C-alpha cells in the first residue's frame, strides 16, 4: 500500500491572469481531504493538474505512485473524477454510460452500481438530457463510484444540490472510506460539508496554500475571545493573534494558537474574559484568508 495517494511538490502553473504558486500537498492513503477556497482561488486548477489534464510549469506530481501527467492513463484507471464543469453525453441514457464504463474499467461493480441507482433515486433508462441538475450530478457520481476507484477526486461535489441529494452524496463519499485503502480528495466552498467529513483540511487562496492541518487541530487552535478591558488598559500581547475587532473597551480577539493559558494570562492582567468562542470552519477560513490578504503574518 502506498503511503500517500497524492503528492504535490512545488507545483506551479502560470496563466495570464492567475498563478498557482508552489503548491505542496500530501494526502495519506485512507484519508479524506477537503480543499477549501473561494472561487478562482485555484482549486479546480489544482485538481486538473492532479488528473494530468493540465501540465504544470514546475514541480512534481505523483498520484497513486504514478508521475503526472506522463502516466495519467495508468493513474486514471484507478481514479474516479467529477468536476463542476463536467457533462455527460445528453442523448444517450444513463444505462448506456454505465455499459460504456463497464467496458473500460476492470473493477466495475455492477451490483454496487444498481444499488446506487436505488439510493440516488435514478432511472437507468432515462436520457441524461432529461435529468435535473441534481440527478446529473448523482449520475456522474455513480459512474465514478461504481468503478471502485482507489482515489476519488471531486470538484465541488455538493454545489447546487438540494439537502436530500447532498446528504446522499456525503453518505456515499463516506462509504468509500469504509475501506481504509481508499482515499478521497474534494474541493468545496461549502465549509459545512468540509467541516463534517474531512480528516484533513487545506485552505487555498489566490493560488497559494494558506494553511493545511487535520480538522481537529484546526478546530482546536482557533478561538474568538471576547474581552472586557478596564479603562486605560492596553490589550496584553497574546500568541497567534490574527485579528482584533470590536471596540477599544470591548475587543474581540481572533487567535489561531489558543491554549487555556491564554485565558489566565488575560485575567491575571485584570482583563475579563467574557467568553471563549469556538469558531466554525467558515469563520476560521474567512479569518485566515482575510488576515493573509492584508499581509498579516500567521
Amino acid at each position, binding site marked *: 500500500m502506498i503511503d500517500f495517494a497524492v503528492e504535490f511538490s512545488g507545483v506551479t502553473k502560470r496563466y495570464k491572469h492567475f498563478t498557482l504558486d508552489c503548491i505542496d500537498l500530501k494526502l495519506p492513503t485512507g484519508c479524506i481531504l477537503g480543499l477549501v477556497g473561494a472561487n478562482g482561488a485555484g482549486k479546480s486548477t489544482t485538481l*486538473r493538474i492532479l*488528473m494530468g*489534464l*493540465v*501540465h504544470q510549469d514546475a514541480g512534481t506530481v505523483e498520484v497513486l505512485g504514478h508521475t503526472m501527467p506522463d502516466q*495519467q*492513463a*495508468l493513474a*486514471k*484507471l484507478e*481514479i474516479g*473524477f467529477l*468536476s463542476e*464543469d*463536467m*457533462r*455527460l*453525453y*445528453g*442523448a*444517450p441514457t444513463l444505462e448506456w454510460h454505465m455499459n*460504456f464504463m463497464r*467496458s*473500460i*474499467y476492470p473493477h466495475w461493480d455492477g451490483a454496487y452500481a444498481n444499488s446506487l441507482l436505488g439510493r440516488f433515486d435514478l432511472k437507468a433508462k432515462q436520457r441524461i438530457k432529461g435529468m435535473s441538475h441534481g440527478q446529473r450530478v448523482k449520475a*456522474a457520481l455513480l459512474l465514478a463510484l461504481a468503478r471502485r476507484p482507489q482515489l476519488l477526486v471531486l470538484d465541488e461535489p455538493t454545489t447546487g444540490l438540494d439537502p436530500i441529494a447532498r446528504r446522499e452524496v456525503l453518505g456515499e463519499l463516506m462509504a468509500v472510506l469504509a475501506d481504509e485503502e481508499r482515499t478521497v480528495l474534494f474541493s468545496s466552498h461549502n465549509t459545512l460539508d468540509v467541516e463534517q467529513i474531512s480528516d484533513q483540511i487545506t485552505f487555498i487562496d489566490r493560488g497559494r496554500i494558506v494553511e493545511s492541518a487535520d480538522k481537529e487541530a484546526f478546530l482546536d487552535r482557533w478561538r474568538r475571545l471576547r474581552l472586557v478591558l478596564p479603562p486605560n488598559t492596553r490589550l496584553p500581547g497574546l500568541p497567534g493573534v490574527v485579528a482584533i475587532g470590536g471596540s477599544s473597551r470591548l475587543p474581540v480577539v481572533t487567535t489561531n494558537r489558543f491554549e487555556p493559558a491564554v485565558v489566565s494570562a488575560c485575567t491575571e492582567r485584570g482583563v475579563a474574559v467574557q467568553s471563549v468562542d469556538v469558531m466554525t470552519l467558515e469563520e476560521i477560513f474567512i479569518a485566515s484568508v482575510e488576515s493573509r490578504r492584508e499581509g498579516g503574518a500567521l
Partner: protein
Amino acid sequence: MNIAMVKRLIWKDWYLNRAAILFSLIGGMVTLALVASSHGSNIVMILGLIVIVTILIGMGSMVMASAVTERKQQTLPFVMSLPISYVEYTTAKIVGSLLIFLVLWTVMLVDILATILLAPGFPHGLIPFVVIMSVEILMSTCLVTAVAVTTESQGWTVGVAQVGALSLNWIGWWIVRFPDIGGAMRSATVRWSGTATALLSTELAAIALLLAITFFIQARKKDFI
C-alpha cells in the same frame, strides 16, 4: 498506445453520430441512383454531383466537429477522466472522424465510378478528373479535421470548412485547365496522364503532412481543459 481504448472512443463517436452517418449514406446513394438513371444528361449529372459533394462535405464537417462539440458541450472533462492519454484521444478523434468519412467517401467513389463505367451515356474519360476531385474533397476534409482537433473552436472549423467547400470549385476549374485532364474528359476511354499522377501524389502528400502536423501540435499542448 492503448488500441482497445482508442477503438472504444471511436465506437463512441460513431454511436453518438449514427443518425447523421446513416442519413448521409442513404441520401448519397439515392442521389447517385438518380444520376445513374438519367442516362448522361449533363444537367442532372452536375446537379447530382453537387448534391453528393454537399452531403459529403456537410456531413463530414459535422462529424469532424465532434472534437469541437466535445468542448462546446463540456463533455471533454468526462472523456479525459477516462484512462487515456491525450495522444490516444487525438488519435481516436482523427482516425474516428476520417474513418466515417472514408467509408462514405469510398462508397461514393465506387458508386460514381460504377455509374460512369456501367451506366450508359457517361464518357469514361471523366474518371481521372473524378478521382482527383474526390481526393481533393478528402484533403479538404482532412484539413477541417485537423483544424477541429487542434483549435477545438467552432468558428475556425466552420470557417475552414466553408473555405474548403468554396475553393473546391476553383480548384476544380483550375484542374480542368490542364490539357491532359480537361481534354481527356470527353473521351470514351480512360486516359491516365502524368499530370494526373503528379496531382494525385501532391494531394496524398498534403494529406500525410496535415495529419503529421496535427499530431505534432497536439503532442505539444500543455493544457487540455
